[in-house]
């Protein structure tokens, strides 16, 4: 008795398959190569992980602005913070870390950069900044405004922070060039 279903053997066009595969690999390769050569990432936000710490040996930047804001943290929907905007900056020995409580142990997820990190269009929302600071053309002023965020403004044409520790809630960079980046997860005593 013959089977009612007839098997139809499909055929793959090798020419079309390999040309499509080659084109895909080439495109991916070009993307990775371009990223590897320039080392630049665009529009990078770090948010939604609650407060984390940023430490570095030195930050040199231009076009600095500070104003107050209310923003979300890991423990509150609305917590007082300060927004720091820096147009262009270079950070030496950058370290970002966040500690997590896993069971009865603490682990630290840390991102470090062994080479200077170059950033443009930084927005950094922090609750606390500790550093040795140098400012050029520093201005603290009040503005007559109904918008409370515009009533107090701190600006400077250049800023240098050394041996800094910043309790951070939100970080955004238009572009970041982070060569020598390393991600580590380690157990810590706390």
């Amino acid at each position, binding site marked *: 008795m013959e089977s009612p279903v007839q098997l139809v053997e499909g055929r793959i066009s090798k020419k079309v398959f390999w040309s499509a595969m080659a084109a895909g690999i080439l495109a991916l390769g070009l993307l990775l190569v371009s990223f590897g050569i320039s080392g630049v990432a665009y529009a990078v936000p770090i948010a939604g992980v609650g407060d984390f710490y940023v430490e570095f040996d030195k930050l040199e930047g231009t076009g600095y602005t500070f104003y107050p804001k209310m923003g979300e943290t890991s423990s509150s929907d609305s917590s007082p*913070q300060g927004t720091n905007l820096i147009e262009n900056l270079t950070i030496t020995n950058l370290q970002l870390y966040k500690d997590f409580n896993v069971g009865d142990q603490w682990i630290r997820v840390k991102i470090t950069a062994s080479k200077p990190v170059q950033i443009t269009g930084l927005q950094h929302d922090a609750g606390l900044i500790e550093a040795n600071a140098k400012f050029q*053309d520093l201005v603290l002023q009040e503005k007559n405004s109904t918008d409370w965020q515009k009533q*107090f403004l701190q600006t400077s044409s250049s800023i240098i922070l050394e041996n800094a520790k910043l309790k951070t809630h939100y970080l955004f960079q238009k572009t970041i060039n982070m060569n020598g980046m390393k991600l580590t997860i380690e157990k810590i005593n706390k």
Partner: protein
Amino acid sequence: MWWKTKFILIVCCLTLMCLPLLSPANSIKAAENSNTEGFIIEADKVVGTGMKASIVKQETSTSNSKLMLRIQYESATIYGMKLTKPVSTGKGTVSITLSANGPVTVYGMTVDTTAISFKGACLKAGETIPELGMENVVMVAHYMKSENSIIEQLVLNTVNGNAQPNKPGQLQILQDLAVLPLSQLDKEIEKMTSGQLPLACSDGSIQEEASRGTGIEQLPDGIGVVTDPLEPVLDPLEPILDPVTKPLEPILDPVTKPLEPILDPVTKPLEPILEPITKPLEPIVDQVTKPLEPIVSGTVGAADQVVQTVCTKVRDANGVINKQLALELMDEAISKKIPLNQVCQENKSVLQMVGNLEDSLLKSLGMVDLFGKILGDPIDVLYKMRDKVLKKPDGAIIYSP
């Protein structure tokens, strides 16, 4: 009548619409804004050069133009500085605090203030004071600018609530000027500047003087109006002392005979105490007849001896390397421009220990990649390791097997 009912309804609606305008929330909000106006600058001590004071108009958070005292310094050092700015948000008041645990050095500083209290010199309009020191300064500032600022140990914090300290009272001179019409105001400010009149002093007394100088006179408080004329003084004053009628008796007897001499006159010359030196002094030190023996031997192999000593120390300590020993190893590596794990090549066990020390320091600095390769120039890495060890307390154990 339908139109009467409609009219009453419209009136009621309009009244209800206007009610929120009269609610206490508006007055509270206005009071809150007024309370959060300005930022408070506190300082234990301010020492500066080239200080100048003047009156200017400046913007605040609630006004486009307000009279203020402007203080300018060519350069100043501020000790114990703390700046507090309360901000009234829609969800309550928050405070921005900027404090410096170290000294703050500023060049070309300008501060505009409406209220100030301090201990120290007087601030006079238009006068440049070469050097000025002020203590316990508290001011309500609305504008601050500096060409260069160096803030040691800055702490910038944002917290819930109003953390501002007690504000000093508004300057009397500014209150007096504020009531003047605009046409007269500029003239008065110019007059004060050209006359170098006092604007603020630590005791506040000169403010009244400044007000008098500008014609904004104020009657002193606490003195009643004089209504009764003074009665004339008719009776002469009674003398308290009787007049001197007889001469005073002498207390000392007159000197009638000459004083007796106490010392005999010197008639013969003084006898010499030291005998004259008649023979030459005998030499104390014998003549050097043979050459000095060399104290220091040749320096060939001295460096090796140091290495030997450092490596021996590591071996003797059973691989427990403290801060001092680690620094010695690194100094040796830096001077020879070799990696740390090649300093003690003669002894394999010590070599292993030093290698382990290097690995642990490299990992803690994040200077090694996944394959164990050192990232960066080896000498730079050595200096970084040395800096890290230097930050440890004396005697701290850097590596233990």
